[in-house]
């Protein structure tokens, strides 16, 4: 749950990158971290924390705090998390989702990962429900990752197919992306951050962000 600290004049929101295993959640955060390092160099205070296996699969979480300027006179801090995507890590995935304010659903556009995407999205809805939440209560955006593989002749589902597969509502933003190349990674983050803050401000103090 978001924290608004009126003494320090800051608002802190939690955004979780969710999706099936190997869909590109960690790659998103790594790209964002790389861009922050390029922009701020040694003055960057944020650190990317990863609890992962030796095979570089997320075991528990990745975490990256990002400052995103000011909103309504408050410093906006995003707490970005990823969840472990593999099915066996369900219990830890649920723990990471606690207190979520916004979600980026990172789907794997590979044609062979159709069912994994559906299973993961259903899992997200179930876990949100356990916390008394629906997708209406949070900022939500979808990212159709690995779209760049099409150029290499690997079968991927296009954006329309992905939207139909996951029954994405008309008002929910979606982005075709390549987390590896950085395509639409920052755009996804910006939009989901705006949506999330808007929901949080409306919920907490009844104003539109």
């Amino acid at each position, binding site marked *: *749950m978001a*924290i*608004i*600290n*009126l*003494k*320090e004049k800051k608002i*802190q929101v*939690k955004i979780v990158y969710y999706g099936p295993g190997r869909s590109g959640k960690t790659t998103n955060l790594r790209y964002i971290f790389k861009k922050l390092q390029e922009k701020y160099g040694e003055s960057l205070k944020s*650190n990317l*924390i990863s*609890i992962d296996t030796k095979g570089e699969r997320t075991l*528990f*979480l990745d*975490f990256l*705090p990002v400052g995103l300027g000011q909103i309504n006179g408050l410093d906006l801090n995003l*707490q970005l*998390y990823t969840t472990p995507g593999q099915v066996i890590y369900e*219990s*830890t995935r649920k*723990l*990471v989702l*606690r*207190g*979520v304010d916004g979600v980026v659903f990172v789907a794997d556009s590979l044609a062979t990962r159709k069912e994994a995407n559906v299973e993961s999205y259903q899992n997200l809805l179930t876990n949100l429900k356990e916390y008394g939440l629906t997708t209406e209560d949070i900022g939500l955006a979808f990212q159709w990752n690995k779209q760049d593989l099409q150029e290499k002749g690997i079968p991927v589902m296009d954006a329309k197919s992905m939207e139909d597969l996951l029954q994405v509502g008309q008002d929910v933003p979606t982005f075709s992306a390549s987390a590896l190349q950085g395509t639409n990674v920052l755009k996804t983050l910006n939009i989901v951050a705006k949506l999330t803050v808007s929901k949080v401000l409306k919920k*907490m*103090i009844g104003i539109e962000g």
Partner: protein
Amino acid sequence: MLTEEKVNRLEASLAKLLDDAGATYAFLADMGGNLICSAGRSDFDGTSLAVLSAANFAATREMASLIGEKDFSLLFHRGENENIHFTRINPDVLLIVLFKPYLSLGLLRLKVENVKKEIASVF
């Protein structure tokens, strides 16, 4: 929402705990991993510590549940330069205290118990 008055009261309670127990650093985190406030040494990365503390605490609770325990009564890690002690203030808030190894864990736990109600009353 944390008003200025609430944050001041929490910071005062943490500062008092550090004084009474001789501890190094104390902070409050919620179970979502947010740092609420802190007191003591300023060179620790409180933001990351809050995230990992919440994750650690949550994971340990799940382990307790798997082995048929309601909860563990003590969550504490001993280090060479700093020990770290976790306690739950209420279902959503954790108090984490870093203290030197030469300080008594028993005394720290006593001081933490003394300050718990004070902190809980702010939320």
